[in-house]
């Protein structure tokens, strides 16, 4: 295979990953890495480096739209980014010290969880927790345009959310993914922030989180221009197309089909981890 053919193939795979990632809400990064390693035999570290770059591109592109719509909360995002960026550095440093076989197994487990979560909606968050004085002091509150006018909310259990965010950052740095699923859990389930605000704020945070580990990946030589170029352009193009189609699309059947495919990749990743 020549560089030309390889680049075309990687672009096609990445565009499909970006498209399906946007449609199902899984994100393109978590799909492109197993696709590159399992289908094209790319070393996991190169795949993770390229995927991380694509994560910054898609999240920044999508965040631009969400921030404008008034759903994402910049203050909550900025405050929790202290946790995710510290976690991301820890994860990226950890990634350079543990064997790729272990990385492959962890990746598989995270994929399995992502497949499961994409087909199950999170339980409705309770709102009867005590008010958190920390949330008041840090102004972790806001309002979003709802069906009955502006809906107000204030974060609860700030410390728990902060701790989960550190974990989300670590996974992001370790595996080169956005780990949007875990960020949403931290905000929606732990901090009781409305779901729509949680998902859009999570997207807003992903770029900054990924940028923190990108610096470390770059200096360790994980980001190869020849590979990252088609991955970044492909995932970006695919996710923009996916977001366009998403408006009014019925995604339930697609979601389930796709979750099965992702679960299969997850098992393959875990299996290949044990083979090494």
């Amino acid at each position, binding site marked *: *295979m*020549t*560089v*030309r053919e390889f*680049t075309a193939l990687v672009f096609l795979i990445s565009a499909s990953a970006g498209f399906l990632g946007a449609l199902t809400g899984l994100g393109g990064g978590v799909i492109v890495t197993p696709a590159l390693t399992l289908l*094209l*035999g*790319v*070393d996991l*570290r*190169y795949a993770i480096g390229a995927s991380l*770059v694509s994560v*910054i*591109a898609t999240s*920044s*592109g999508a*965040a*631009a*739209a969400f*921030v*404008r719509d*008034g759903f994402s909360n*910049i*203050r909550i995002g*900025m*405050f929790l*980014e*202290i946790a995710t*960026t*510290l976690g*991301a*550095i820890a994860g*990226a440093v950890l990634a*350079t010290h543990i064997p790729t076989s272990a990385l492959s197994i962890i990746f598989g487990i995270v994929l399995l969880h992502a497949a499961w979560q994409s087909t199950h909606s999170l339980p409705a968050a309770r709102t009867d927790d005590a008010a958190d004085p920390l949330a008041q*002091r*840090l*102004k972790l509150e806001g309002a979003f345009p709802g069906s009955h006018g502006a809906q107000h909310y204030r974060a609860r259990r700030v410390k728990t959310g902060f701790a989960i965010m550190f974990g989300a950052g670590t996974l992001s740095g370790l595996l080169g993914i956005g780990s949007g699923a875990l960020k949403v859990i931290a905000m929606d389930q732990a901090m009781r922030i409305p779901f729509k605000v949680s998902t859009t704020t999570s997207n807003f945070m992903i*770029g*900054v989180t990924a*940028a*923190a*580990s*990108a*610096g*470390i990946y*770059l*200096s*360790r*030589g*994980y*980001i*190869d*221009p*020849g*590979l*990252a*170029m088609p991955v*970044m*352009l492909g995932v*970006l193009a695919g996710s923009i197309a996916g977001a366009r189609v998403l408006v009014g699309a019925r995604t339930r059947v697609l979601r389930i089909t796709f979750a099965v495919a992702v679960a299969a990749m997850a098992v393959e990743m875990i299996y290949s981890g044990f083979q090494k």
Partner: protein
Amino acid sequence: MTDERLESIVASLLRTGVSLAAAVVLGGGIVYLVRHGGEHPAYSAFHGEPAEYRYVSSIVRAAFSGQARGIIELGLLILIATPVARVVACVAGFALEKDRAYVVITTIVLAILLYSLISKP
């Protein structure tokens, strides 16, 4: 300065950064494919990038000397810098809002980001 105004500045900043990065990566990619398209890719074993593609200063040098891979890496650097620029905009925005707690919070995030970009292992 209001939160809404800051949000719209952040949105256009993100959009501009991603578009610029994608354009530079695409430009470098075309040069790369024209020059190296017939070679054989080797990604099955990890070797790590050469030192010139690992650090900001040497990437910029490689890009401006016309190396295709250097131009792609420069585009990727612009992409990585986009969220960093977003945090800088937030520091300035909260300063104009005279919100001291959030100036401190955003400055901490900025310091963490700069540390990861500048520190060499």
